[in-house]
């Protein structure tokens, strides 16, 4: 009885400890998730009129909305464009920095510094590179006798320009995870393979790369999330233009909610983002967490 009582008290105490976090998470994560779902079933009320329930009409609109599909496709291209390249670069950087290298400290610092900058600041700087006619890139091309490219104004190039900037911003962040993983690989493995006369290339592919697999998956998940979450640079670089060539899902949500005053359509698009994230989360919790043993 006494023990039971003590247990009970522990439970209550524990619940109380959880309370602040639970209230905050409820208010700013679960409640808004649910109300997003609910609001996606309404029309926005204008001139103070109450919102009208319309079932799945907003979703029907979404399916017909060419801009939405354009934006979704952009986001996919953006993810495919940023993720593999920044991961490959991150791995390369980590290998460089992990090896004996003159000025290693500087090199590592150079790789990592973009991570410290706000996206807005990074976009400001890259704006000077990308500006047509007077931007640095086109000045350089001009000096080489080449005609300039309208980096952000040409729809076939603009998304690529945004991608390049994102890679620059992210690769250094992912590098440190690879670096840590590399440093935890026992040096004996390398010594053994040296004795066997394995060349470095096949050592990398046969030993290092497989050992880095959990890190790669971890970085991949992070990169996926960032591809959905971070749209700050669009506010400076392109505002989603030209003709939506660089518009991404979350930026489209922002536009609908705050520029077009259409909160319920914004909620509908948010639901799509939530679905994407749910997939990523499932992948993480089922595949990734089974492989890494951290409990």
């Amino acid at each position, binding site marked *: 009885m006494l023990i039971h009582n003590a247990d009970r008290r522990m439970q209550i105490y524990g619940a109380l400890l959880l309370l602040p976090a639970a209230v905050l998470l409820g208010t700013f994560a679960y409640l808004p998730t649910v109300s997003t779902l609910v609001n996606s079933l309404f029309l926005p009320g*204008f*001139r103070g009129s109450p919102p009208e329930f319309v079932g799945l009409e907003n979703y029907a609109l979404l399916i017909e909305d060419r801009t939405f599909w354009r934006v979704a496709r952009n986001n996919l291209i953006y993810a495919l464009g940023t993720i593999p390249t920044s991961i490959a670069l991150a791995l390369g950087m980590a290998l460089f920095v992990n090896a004996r290298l003159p000025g290693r400290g500087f090199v590592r610092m150079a790789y990592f510094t973009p991570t410290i900058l706000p996206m807005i600041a990074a976009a400001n700087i890259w704006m000077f590179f990308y500006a047509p006619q*007077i931007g640095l890139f086109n000045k350089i091309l001009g000096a080489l006798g080449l005609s300039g490219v*309208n980096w952000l*104004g040409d729809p*076939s190039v603009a998304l690529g320009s945004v991608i390049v900037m994102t890679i620059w911003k992210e690769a250094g962040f992912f590098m440190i995870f690879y670096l840590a993983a590399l440093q935890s690989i026992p040096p004996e493995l390398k010594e053994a393979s040296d004795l066997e006369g394995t060349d470095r290339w096949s050592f990398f592919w046969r030993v290092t790369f497989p050992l880095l697999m959990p890190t790669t998956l971890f970085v991949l998940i992070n990169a996926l999330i960032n591809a959905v979450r971070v749209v700050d640079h669009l506010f400076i670089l392109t505002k989603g233009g*030209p*003709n939506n060539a660089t518009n991404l899902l979350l930026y489209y949500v922002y536009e609908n909610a705050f*520029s077009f005053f*259409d909160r319920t359509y914004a909620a509908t698009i948010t639901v799509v983002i939530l679905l994407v994230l749910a997939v990523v989360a499932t992948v993480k919790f089922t595949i990734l967490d089974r492989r890494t043993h951290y409990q």
Partner: protein
Amino acid sequence: MNTRLAPTLCGLAAAGLLSAGQAVADDPVELTMYYPIAVGGALTDVIDGLVADFQADHPDISVNAIYAGNYDDTRVRAMSAIEAGDAPQLSVLFSIDLFDLIEQDAIVAFDDLLETDEEREWLDSFYPGLMENGQLDGQTYGIPFQRSTIVLYWNKEAFEAAGLDPETPPETWEEMAEMAAAVREASGGDQWGVMVPSTGYPYWMFQAFAFQNGHRLMSEDGTEVFFDDPASIEALEYWVSLTQEHEAMPDGTIEWGTLRQSFIEQATAMMWHTTGNLTAVRNEASFDFGVAMLPMNTQRGSPTGGGNFYIFNDTTEDEQRAAMTFIRWMTDPERAAAWSIETGYMGVSPAAYETEVLRDYVETFPPAAVARDQLEHGTAELSTYQGGRVRRALDNAIQAALTGQMSPEEALNQAQAEAEAALRRYARSR
């Protein structure tokens, strides 16, 4: 490290607070005002200076003027403040936000606030062309403040180098295309002939083309648009031809914000831009330049543009009176003249151009009068219900055509369909 910074930061902030809190009289009426900036130069300084002068004249009113970014950002900020129950008493917002603001039930008509004959006279003192965007159903909701038209800036030295008469700007579409191509050719490809910005406010530029072709893009009550009319398609075809046929304008979109810099760096011989940039160009250009009305096809024309004063719903009578006092002070001919000289924006009333300062200024610097003279060929800026979405549909169409993704006709048909869908959704949910 953050803790080490703290004292310095607090010191700085305290200094900021002190300077902000100077105008404390006994219980002044407090007004909050959001305002946008869309042109070059340190205009926040100018506004702050004006506000300080006003407070010196009216110690019983204190104005907190908040710079909130471009026109879109400012509307978003003002609306979100209203929604959060923290409404500003007045703001300078896009003249074309009228319908959105009414849609959100956010503003009051000035007619309801007028008390004296003097005030009624004041309301009639502005250029009628600038009042168009601020009126609906016979009521006035917006008072012109930072108002503009689009003008043509040309680089006289570039004209001369191309063998053109440096004092003669193009009068017609055809002439502009020819002159632009001539500059391009003479410079051996170093300099573009003309640039018309196609980010930021592409619909605005397009409206000019359409109106010069005798076409208005929207109905007066803001419920219909006419993007796919043949005259409209022809206008967009002309714009596109400047790049594709005449090779006088660069490919892709042209940045609204960096265009002034491009003109100053002589990357282009001509640009279309708001007259609000005039003073910045004048201060920065190292060459002789001229300003002219836009060229014509069937008629001359430019939409008006820029920001109006609005007074918001959710305010006390005292605050509304104080806001009226402030707006009247800001639009007073002397002030309007000074504001025009500082920026290039129009003096909003004929009386402003009759003040000595502005008369003298126009005499020494004739370009300052071009926007005013063009006003007689002016048309209201594109303004409809669901304005954000409707304008975006048109912006996208323009950009699609300019970047060669679609033909002008396809693009405008699509914009028409999108705009109609947005307007239908609005009509549904009313």
